[in-house]
């Protein structure tokens, strides 16, 4: 349980976040302000926001839990699973989205392929984000339950109340700027935990020695590359093909909540720089999220649930004051992930579903209101679906499972859409639909196809490959787009050297 000073720190943090978020209401007067921050934000804030919304609460609890169960192989998600993809996004993909004045990734797919592709992609993201919200709320409940003894529903509702209010009023400016504070708090709290945990286990070498002596199942805890026949979800083939080639790129290039942040930049230079700055920060993440899980193997060797590793470390290792700081850091990550999903889903719904299908050509204030109401509806949906997450063995794996359904096919059509002029609307549509269907099929019948515990990396790879092949085959059989239809939508080497005209005005 928390001591008096820790309670005070946590309460001060929550109230402060709420006030800070509400302050940003003054910057919202149009739908562009609400969804894209008026296109006026600096790279450093966006870069921090990208990192903190990505690592959030799921990584703190989920990755620490995976490190506790499987060792450092899970660190691949933040190294090869992020940095190369972020650099690729910065130099190749972001300029197209930014110059096209887009709000969403499906908007690009709609222009490149057709309206159906845009709608399916958008609906899939909305569904994923809605389910993701439930997982995030459940993560908060796990932590609050261990640290403060709060009932599950009380913790879910209090999180929803605070985050919902500032996201509703402040839009993406509130989301990004509260992320900046949250990242600073997370880094300071995270490094403090690592420092004191290392002190508690007697240093790195002592910890390695102790874990190695615990039995044969711990022998590979320090192997970052795992063999194909490993029982963990991280065989090297899955890491290389599923994570590095597909999921990392799909996440950093095709994920609305990540790319939308870059589109809030004040100019194209800031949009690209935000990704590069974010990738530099990303390299520190495994230190913060992985090490506490490893050290928990020594300090708490018999935990029934790996996801309890981090909460238990906070509870037993940190002194008064720092427990509050670390808890605030964790809560910060959770709030950041939730507010990102809320705002991105509201953007997807308003721009890709409501505007084209329900009410065209309404005034801007109307769309602003729709975005805000959608935020509230999503909040209710996330709270209602939270208990679903309790059925999964690890919160992080639950998220990856949801994502593996559609990340591969979506990235396949995005990749071919940019790099292959011959890709047609029917190629894109059939690849997306069949690819998602195939991923669901593999997930349902995974026991018959795969031997590892959770094959989400393999599922994303095979569904990507199938979608890629289908796109190529169907495109070659259907009518190609004209040069005018593809203008500004497909790769040209000029994108690497030219600066957009909008840059020059600022």
């Amino acid at each position: 349980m928390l001591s008096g000073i820790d309670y005070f720190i946590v309460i001060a943090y929550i109230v402060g976040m709420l006030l800070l978020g509400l302050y940003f209401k003054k910057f919202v007067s149009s739908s562009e302000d609400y969804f894209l921050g008026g296109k006026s934000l600096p790279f450093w804030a966006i870069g921090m926001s990208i990192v903190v919304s990505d690592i959030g609460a799921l990584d703190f609890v989920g990755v620490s839990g995976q490190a506790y169960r499987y060792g450092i192989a899970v660190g691949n998600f933040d190294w090869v699973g992020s940095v190369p993809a972020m650099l690729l996004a910065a130099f190749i993909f972001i300029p197209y989205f930014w110059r096209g004045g887009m709000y969403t990734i499906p908007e690009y797919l709609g222009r490149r392929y057709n309206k159906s592709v845009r709608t399916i992609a958008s609906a899939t993201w909305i569904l994923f984000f809605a389910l993701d919200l439930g997982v995030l709320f459940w993560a908060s409940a796990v932590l609050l339950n261990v640290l403060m003894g709060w009932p599950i529903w009380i913790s879910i509702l209090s999180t929803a109340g605070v985050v919902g209010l500032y996201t509703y009023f402040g839009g993406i400016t509130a989301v990004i700027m509260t992320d900046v504070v949250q990242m600073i708090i997370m880094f300071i709290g995270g490094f403090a935990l690592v420092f004191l945990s290392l002190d508690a286990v007697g240093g790195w070498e002592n910890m390695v020695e102790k874990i190695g002596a615990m039995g044969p199942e711990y022998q590979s805890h320090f192997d970052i590359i795992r063999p194909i026949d490993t029982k963990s979800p991280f065989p090297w083939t899955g890491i290389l093909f599923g994570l590095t080639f597909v999921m990392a790129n799909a996440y950093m290039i095709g994920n609305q909540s990540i790319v939308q942040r870059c589109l809030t930049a004040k100019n194209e230079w800031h949009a690209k720089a935000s990704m590069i700055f974010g990738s530099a920060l990303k390299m520190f993440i495994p230190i913060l999220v992985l090490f506490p899980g490893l050290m928990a193997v020594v300090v708490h060797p018999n935990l029934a649930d790996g996801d309890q590793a981090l909460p238990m470390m906070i509870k037993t290792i940190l002194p008064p004051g720092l427990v509050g700081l670390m808890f605030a850091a964790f809560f910060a990550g959770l709030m950041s992930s939730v507010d990102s999903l809320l705002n991105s889903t509201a953007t997807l719904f308003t721009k890709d579903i409501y505007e084209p299908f329900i009410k065209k050509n309404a005034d801007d204030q109307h769309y602003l209101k729709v975005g805000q109401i959608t935020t509230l509806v999503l909040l209710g949906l996330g709270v209602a679906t939270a208990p679903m997450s309790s059925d999964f063995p690890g919160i992080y794996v639950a998220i990856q499972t949801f994502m593996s359904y559609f990340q591969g096919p979506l990235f396949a059509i995005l990749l071919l859409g940019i790099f292959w002029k011959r890709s047609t609307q029917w190629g894109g549509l059939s690849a997306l639909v069949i690819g998602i269907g195939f991923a669901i099929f593999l997930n349902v019948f995974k026991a018959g196809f795969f031997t590892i515990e959770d094959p989400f990396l393999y599922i994303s790879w095979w569904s990507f490959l199938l979608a890629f092949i289908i796109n190529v085959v169907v495109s070659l059989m259907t009518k190609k787009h004209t040069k005018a239809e593809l203008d500004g939508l497909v790769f040209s080497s000029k994108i690497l050297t030219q600066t957009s005209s909008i840059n020059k005005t600022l």
Partner: protein
Amino acid sequence: MNEAYRTTKIKTAQINQALGVFIFTFGIIITIAMVFTETFVQQMTDLFAGLVLMGIGGGMLWKSKQTLKKYKEAN
């Protein structure tokens, strides 16, 4: 200097000011929390974390004040 550029600069400075106040205040609270710790290592960790937060928050406040002064005077 056009109006859009000036408005963006002022907006960024106002945002930084709000962030600076929050981070600086939080730094003070963490520094005070060292009173409740038991060992020297714990005290130093609290102190260091608090000072880093105060440094970042103070820096943001100072920079935003300079920017606001410059661009509001230019109006």
